[in-house]
């Protein structure tokens, strides 16, 4: 899951990036509205964590601007804890959720996953494709109840494919979703992850559509 964090406080921004990465997310960070405007269209984000007070404007105004432009990515607002009207105004302007500072990293990650799930129209937390079950919160993959240990990237690739079973996802789409800007992406990195997934999960689960991309067979 790729997340854009918009937060001006350097220490919190840094903490959010490190903390959400611990939760298996791919995180990009920006510190003001201007950078956020530039960053949002450039990445395939599944959620935005947006602070309200930014040095060059209000997060609430940025939120409204995005919603007017038809940006539909789920947005979670970070608000000061005791100002109810900020939350009400945020929700009115198109925020999907909010969290008062200071907050628990685990709660933030859970809320972001819930936003992603809702955006994909899924009611339950885990993804089930045939015998394969993926639990994004625990980052656990099982086949017929047997746990398969996966690396962070392998899990991320599998998650991207499993969100839309049967749909072909291109290599660059996968790259967009699992790598942040600052990260070096090797030319065959996705192929390596796919190869490893096939080895660990067994044949017949991850399919290659030659010249187009990859998919998980819907059964």
């Amino acid at each position: 899951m790729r997340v854009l964090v918009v937060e001006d406080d350097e220490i919190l921004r840094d903490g959010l990036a490190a903390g959400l990465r611990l939760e298996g997310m791919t995180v990009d960070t920006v510190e003001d509205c201007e950078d956020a405007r530039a960053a949002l269209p450039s990445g395939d984000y599944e959620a935005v964590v947006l602070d309200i007070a930014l040095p060059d404007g209000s997060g609430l105004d940025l939120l409204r601007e995005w919603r007017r432009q038809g940006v539909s990515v789920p947005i979670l607002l970070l608000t000061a804890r005791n100002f109810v009207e900020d939350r009400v105004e945020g929700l009115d302007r198109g925020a999907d959720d909010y969290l008062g500072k200071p907050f628990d990293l685990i709660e933030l990650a859970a809320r972001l996953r819930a936003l992603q799930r809702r955006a994909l129209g899924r009611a339950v937390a885990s993804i089930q494709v045939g015998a394969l079950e993926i639990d994004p919160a625990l980052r656990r993959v099982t086949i017929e109840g047997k746990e398969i240990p996966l690396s962070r990237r392998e899990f991320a690739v599998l998650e991207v494919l499993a969100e839309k079973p049967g749909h072909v996802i291109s290599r660059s789409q996968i790259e967009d979703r699992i790598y942040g800007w600052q990260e070096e992406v090797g030319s065959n990195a996705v192929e390596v992850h796919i190869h490893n997934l096939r080895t660990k999960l067994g044949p017949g689960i991850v399919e290659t559509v030659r010249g187009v991309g990859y998919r998980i067979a819907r059964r």
Partner: protein
Amino acid sequence: MISLRLRLFMLVVTATALVWSAAATWTVLGARSDIEEVLDRRLREAAHMVASLNYSGSDPAVPAVAPPMVDPSYERQLSCQIWSLGGNLVRRSGSAPATPLSAGQPGFSERTINGVRWRVYTYLDPASGLQVMVGDTLAVRQQLVTDLIAGLLVPAAVGLVALAALLWLGVNRGLAPVRQVAAAITARGPSDLQPLGETGIPAELTPLTQAIDGLFARVTELRARERQFLASAAHEMQTPLAGLKTHADIALRSSDPETRTHSLARISLSVDRTARLVRQLLDLARQEGEAQQEGRQQTPLRTVFAMVEHELESLLAERNVTLRLTPPASQLILPISEEALLMALRNLVENAVIYGPGDADVIVGAVQSADSVGFYVEDQGPGLTADEAQACTQPFVRGQRAKGRGSGLGLAIAHAALANAGMTMSFEQLQPTGFRITAVLRLS
């Protein structure tokens, strides 16, 4: 203070009573002389009439003559005597005394007979050789005047009471808008600061309601500012707390020693910054709560400069900035308390060190002229535009280029501390590059 209603009422009633009394006095005095004149004319006419009867001798068949009078009491009091030139009483009316009503000289005269004062007209008829005396008592005249005054004053008094009642009602009714405005304000809740407006308010009251609306507007603005301050303070406090908590979570959960060390270092930095923020918030609260104390204290700039240099030692070292005090400034004594000067200078110097370039100088200099005294802090950074700097004297407002550490409190604290000592700040961008903040006290 006496009520407006009573005041108005008393004024109108007193004025009415005064005008009324003057009119009544004038009427009474005029009426009295008119009555005297009419009665005198009657006496004379009566005397002439009796004389014209050509009365000759004591003919008992001819009755005594009296002029026709409307008032029976007056008729009774009008008396007539006819005397011969020889001094014999020829005839007299029933009410007339036997002694002569006058000494015998023609015309009007007054005389007291048996304790009763008479006014008499004496007519000497040369043809018949008779003297006709017609008189009335002064008592009856007085009675007439008294009756007239009573006839005037009683209705006037009754009228005055009725008028007072009507005035009271009228004043009450006229003051109804005042009561309505008062009731409208009384009925409001403590947070209802909507303007009263001008509809339905008479012109005389609009200065008052406008003044109240002006106060409402100022209170509303103050509340909005306080609210904004609280919101900003909450954000400024809770953001570093969120950063602290996030890094603490990471340090607790990560098994990677490098990640943990990094997070612990961030926690330490965050605690430093939060401590600075708390200190600044307290400084600001203290300076804003201070009373004005212009020119009561004298503080050498050099002493406070040394304190600031000491306090900011590690920041100066980190940025490799040298703090310099110009020779005139080291001799300067400023009319401001040591604490206020410390707050102002520390925050101005801190800003200069943080936002100016590293490996450079920050200079503290003196301003001394015939009409002002003060100091300046100068760095070699890009600074702020004058408008931006003015805006930054409000808490939590930061310059457009300000990034990283800082909460937008430094200039606000300096502004509050200097303002308490009657000093004002001005801002100047230097050529080719540099920024100078000058704080001066105008000497009057």
